[in-house]
């Protein structure tokens, strides 16, 4: 059974096809990477899967359920969570609270208990804070537990988004270029974090430019260009695919 099934997906922006007739399947428990040159439509694809954008046509099934008409927060409740290429950090909040927002679905969200600060809410919040601190530790941010998000360096913010996404306890985690803008050491560390996440049983979908990283950690790779599928398969298969090679050579030439 597949966790995510994309079928004949297309997205147009003012007549331009960002994604065109794309179909693929993601199985549970894998690390799945999506690669492609700049402007190939990777981020658009993420935005479609997470319902930030609405498809022009095609279908997306998460857990065999059609997500058409669902809002991103509803998908989050179904077990899908993500990070962003352009950081979407809550800069007006402390780092730990960024992660705590991620845990939102698992807290008492009713208005009155919050307003009256009922003991149960306070207790649960304290547990949540501890849990989120442990998540920050998990992604290697233990020294930022008391920090304000606005004061953290870029690399740390990337991990903060991962911690926030994990706090939602997703089954499917989509990471949009988690290593972009990071130096080699930081990239390696992120690499480790992703593997650790996958080991906990979370299915990871990755958009990434860092080929070394992609080839190293992926179970499967989907290569796209101009919104269309170029190749699909294991890292070795995709690496050997002539279309992929030429797209990359072309893009880099």
């Amino acid at each position, binding site marked *: 059974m597949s966790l995510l099934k994309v079928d004949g997906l297309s997205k147009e922006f003012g007549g331009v096809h960002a994604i065109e007739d794309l179909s693929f399947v993601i199985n549970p428990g894998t690390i799945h990477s999506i690669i492609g040159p700049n402007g190939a439509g990777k981020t658009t694809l993420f935005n479609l899967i997470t319902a930030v*954008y609405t498809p022009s046509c095609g279908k997306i099934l998460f857990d065999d359920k059609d997500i058409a008409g669902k809002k991103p927060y509803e998908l989050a409740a179904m077990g899908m969570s993500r990070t962003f290429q352009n950081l*979407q950090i809550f800069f007006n909040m402390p780092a730990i609270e960024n992660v705590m927002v991620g845990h939102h679905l698992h807290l008492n969200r009713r208005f009155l208990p919050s307003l009256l600060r009922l003991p149960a809410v306070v207790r649960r919040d304290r547990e949540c804070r501890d849990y989120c601190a442990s998540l920050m530790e998990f992604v290697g941010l233990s020294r930022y537990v008391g920090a304000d998000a606005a004061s953290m360096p870029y690399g740390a913010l990337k991990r903060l988004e991962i911690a926030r996404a994990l706090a939602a306890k997703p089954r499917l985690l989509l990471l949009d270029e988690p290593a972009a803008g990071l130096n080699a050491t930081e990239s390696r560390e992120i690499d480790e974090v992703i593997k650790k996440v996958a080991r906990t049983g979370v299915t990871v979908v990755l958009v990434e430019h860092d080929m070394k990283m992609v080839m190293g950690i992926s179970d499967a790779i989907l290569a796209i260009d101009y919104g269309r599928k170029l190749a699909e398969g294991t890292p070795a298969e995709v690496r050997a695919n002539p279309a992929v090679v030429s797209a990359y050579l072309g893009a880099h030439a």
Partner: protein
Amino acid sequence: MFAELLQYLFAGLTSGAIYALAGLGFAIIYNSSHVINFAQGEFIMIGGMSTAMMVAAGVPLPVASLLAVLVTMLVGVALEKFAIEPARNADVTTIIIITIGASIFLRGLAQIVWDKEFHSLPAFSGETPLNVGGATLMPQSIWVVGVAVVVIVALWWFFNRTLFGKAMLATSFNRLAAQLMGIGVKKVLMVSFALSALLGAVGGIVVTPITFTNYEAGIMLGLKGFSAAVLGGLGNGMGAIVGGLAVGIAEALASGYLSSAYKDAVAFVIILFVLFFLPNGLFGKKGTDRV
């Protein structure tokens, strides 16, 4: 029946052209800085008041107009230099409060420098109404519409045909990139304030024979101008014109066919309705958040 409708349209045209001129000023500043300048109405007031006061003191109208435009531009540049520029990186709401503070300040200043009475200017081309299809229109209304048209053409030329104008547009799209290309963002900001002050002053002068002016005249014009600019889509000059005319005509038709007591409310309901379907106004760029 038709004459009646035509008369309503003329009434709307007169008010609408005034709102459009006010709205254009908002559009220019928004375009280059993404600042909404709530003191825009005060530019109009200063233009009208200083002209009226000088004319009353015996200065010929053309000279008085020119001086008034200069005075208003000076105020605009000073506002940018001393109030907007130092707060350039502040939050949108903070800047809104600064410009509202500026509008209160300028009103306070005007009531001291001048007075609290209403002032007028003679109509530029007399007060004999023109008869068109059984409806009447004052020549001054045509002046207002004409000035609005000239201004929009001039602005179009400036933003699309001159290097500096293009630079200003570029700044509005991407401040950093503009800076990298050697465009002085500060200069662009200052010019945009000077420009919209100029526009305000010109507007103030042409509308004074119709609406009169006093130190508080800018309040209403500021509000309607903002409405016009938002309805048209912020930062879009043509949008501001269309928005202004739409508000003016909606008000006139509402007082003609519905209820004059609720004409302003009708105009706002229409704006709300438009925003409901077009959250970026009639001609606003439909931005997709890039995430």
